[in-house]
Every structure is written in C-alpha cells, then in structure tokens.
C-alpha cells in the first residue's frame, strides 16, 4: 500500500522532527544551566571568542564592503530616477543596519563559525573526547558547549555591527568617491534619518537573536552527531542549512514586529 507507506514515512519524519526540537530545547536549557561554571572559567570563553569572532573578521569585513558597494551602486541608480541621490546615505545605512547587516553577517557566521563548531564537537564525540571528559567527572556541556555558546552570542552582534560599518564605507566609496554624490548630504541625511533606538538597537536585537539561534543549532548538531565521518559531515551540512532557514524565518518575524507598522 503506497499511500500507507507515505503516511507512515510522513508520521515518522514528523515525530523525529518534534523529538529533535524537544532535544534541542532541553540542550539549550542545559547549556544555560551550566553557563555559571563556564563564566568561572572565563579564559575558555575568551579562547572561543577568538576562534568564532576574530577568525570570522576577514569574511565579515570583505563581504560587508562588497554588499555596501553594491547597495551604493544600486541605490544610486534607483534614487537618481526620482532625483533623490542625496538620500543615498540614508538608504545604504538603513538597509545595512536594519536588514543586511544582521542577516548577511548571521548567514556568514553560520557557514564560517557555526559549521566549524559542529565539526569540532562532532569530531570530539567521534574520537571519544567527550566520553573521556564525562569519565573524568567534568560535564561536557559546562566545559565544551557553554563557552562556545556565550562566545557565539557575544561575537555575533559585534560582527553584524562591523559588517554594517564597513558596508556604509563601501556605499560611501561607490556613491561619493566614485559617482560623485555630495559628501555633506550623504553623511548629514544619514545622521538625521537613522534613529538609534528604532534602527540601530533593533538591528542589534536581531543579530543577538540570530547569534543565539545559529550557535544553539551548531552546538546541538555537533553534540548530537552520529560518531562517524558520515555523521559529522551530515551534521555540518544540517547546521548551515537549518541555520540559514531559521535566520530568514526569524528575520521576517522580527521585522514584522519591529518595523511592520511603521
């Protein structure tokens, strides 16, 4: 009976998905529970900040610069039709601070730092390092997961802010230096139109939420990965795919909540 088989397969996948969401939620709360001990070992968080945050700097800066340059070019072409070239600074800054900064930085963070976290923890599991730690009476969530979790949460908003800042300079370079938009109106209109609370703070909140989501997904996938080469590779792929979709979904929800009525 092909229909029964299909229904059974759908049911199996649904139960499995619900089960994994439950496991991930439990994992998230366990991570919060063991965070106290990781703050007592703050050097571990610093070490992870280096590998997740500092090591992502180059990709964030380069991507931010190009995204800002594209925004400057496209924005100028559009605004020119309405004779509003002087509003280019506002368009570049709002586009970056509200949307592209948090979203693109989070997507890059998921593929650069998130995949590395999953692969590292998955390999630690495959080589019995996590079991060894448990046998030494050290909880792996406290020692391995929690420091990475906090490093991800701290570094994501900083990376998004850097992405936006570099992007604004990219837009400035193309709009003002290359095309010749008036420099004074570029900066002055940006300063007048971008609101700290409504635009910048909401962007920071977005990147904080994305950072939490990506880090939890990456850590859970690594911790839950089957201890084989195929298992770790599958978990790494799932981290990037799931994180990307969750970022875009959360972005829609947050944008609707923050800017939907304004």
């Amino acid at each position: 009976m092909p229909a029964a088989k299909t229904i059974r397969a759908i049911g199996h996948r649904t139960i499995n998905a619900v089960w994994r969401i439950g496991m991930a939620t439990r994992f998230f709360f366990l991570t919060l529970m063991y965070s106290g001990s990781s703050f007592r070992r703050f050097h571990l968080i610093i070490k992870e900040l280096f590998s997740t945050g500092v090591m992502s700097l180059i990709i964030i800066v380069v991507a931010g610069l190009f995204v800002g340059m594209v925004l400057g070019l496209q924005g100028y072409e559009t605004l020119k039709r309405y004779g509003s070239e002087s509003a280019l600074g506002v368009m570049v800054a709002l586009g970056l601070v509200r949307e592209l900064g948090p979203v693109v930085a989070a997507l890059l963070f998921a593929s650069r730092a998130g995949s590395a976290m999953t692969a590292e923890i998955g390999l630690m599991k495959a080589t019995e390092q996590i079991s060894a730690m448990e046998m030494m009476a050290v909880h792996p969530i406290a020692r391995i997961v929690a420091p990475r979790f906090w490093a991800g949460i701290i570094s994501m908003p900083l990376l998004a802010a850097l992405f936006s800042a570099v992007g604004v300079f990219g837009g400035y370079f193309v709009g003002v230096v290359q095309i010749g938009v008036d420099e004074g109106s570029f900066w002055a209109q940006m300063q007048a139109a971008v609101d700290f609370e409504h635009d910048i703070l909401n962007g920071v909140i977005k990147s904080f939420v994305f950072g939490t989501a990506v880090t939890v997904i990456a850590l859970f996938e690594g911790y839950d990965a089957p201890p084989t080469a195929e298992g770790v590779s599958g978990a790494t792929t799932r981290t990037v795919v799931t994180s990307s979709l969750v970022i875009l979904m959360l972005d829609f929800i947050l944008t609707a909540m923050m800017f939907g009525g304004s």
Partner: protein
Amino acid sequence: MVFPKGKLITIMGLSGCGKTTLLRIIGGALKPVKGYVKVDGQNIHELNQDGLYDIRRKMGMLFQFGALFTDMSVYDNVAFQMREHTDLPEELIHDLVLMKLHAVGLRGTHNLMPSELSGGMARRVALARTVALDPMLIMYDEPFAGLDPISLTVVGDLIRRLNDALGATSIVVTHDVQESLKIVDYVYFMANGVIVAEGTPDEIRASDKDFVHQFVHGEMDGPVPFHYPGGNYRQDLNLQA
C-alpha cells in the same frame, strides 16, 4: 564478576561480545537492564549525577585510541583533571604532570600536541592522564589495539607497574591474548554478553573448553564458526541443485 582491590583483571572475548559495554556500565555511562554494579560499596546506578561524578573522580579510564583532547598540549591533557578537581597551585601541578609523564617515559613530550605523537606515545600520554589523580579503579578499553610490538610490551608493562604502584584495581578489556596473559592476575571470558570461562592465566592456557582453546590459540574454526550464517550457497550463486 568480582574485581578485588589491587588485582589486574582482564575481560576477553570476541569483538562485539559486550566487553566495552560492560566497562561503560561500570563507569555509569550506561544503565544495565538487569543486575547491578557496586564500586567501593556504592551501587553506581542508584547515584545521582553529583554522586556519580564523585565516584568517577576515583576512577580512571583509558580509551581505545587514547581520546586525548586535541586542542590541548600533552602537558595540559595530563594537568586537566588536576585543574578541574583540585585547588593545587600551578607550580605543584607542573611537578606532578612531569612526574606522571616521567612514569610513562614521555616527560620530554610535554610541549607537544597530540597530533605530533605516534599511536603508542598517545596511548602512554593518555595513561599518564588516566592516573593523574591516583584512581582506585582503572579501566582500559583495548589498550593494545593497533600498537607495534615494542609499544605493546611497554604499555602492558606500564599497566602492571602502575596498578602495583598505586595499589589500584585494574580492569583490562582486550582480545590480545598473549600480551594480557603475561601481565594479569585473573581472566574472564565473555561471549554474547555472558561469562563463558574464568581463571588465572595458567588455568586459561590449560583450559580444555572448546571456546577458550579456539580463542587462546587463534584457531579459524570451532565454536565460533568461520562463516557468518547465511542461506544456501548454491542458491545464492543461482546454481541448480
């Protein structure tokens, strides 16, 4: 099974017979479906997490391929438990780490990373880490797997000497018959999750039980058949009867 204090006991059996599972049950990583495990008078599976972690501080386990933390140096690997579970000053930890590494003959490797060690060296460093807090019970999961003859003798000798020096109890899970019979006090043979034979090394060597005889002498066929059960061979090859 009983593992008396100060003794070095090996559990032997075919791959997949449940030896490693038994070690994980003793360490509290797995729960038995029935039966119980008592370590130092405490039923391991009735303990809460704090109780389990307290008793694990008195245990050490050497994993099959060492399971050294790859992001830490040899020194930091051996110092790991001392830093996590004691308030010892760093100067004292330094001396203790070098003493532990000296005991396994690898004091000169303390600045190296695990990726710079050979398989035998990694196993010895892992052994130094296992005994870092002088455990009362040491478990070894296939300590001889994949070692060259010299490393094999060195690791075997270290297991015996460390057990005697610490007055600990050691459980060695292995299927390396010749090396383990040289160093252990008592042997359990397992098959399909149950004990099929036991005795001292001399008793095991002299055993007339078919399974033990086949295992000790490495014979191809016997109670453990060469062929995995399958269907009719002629039918599998599509030949007429």
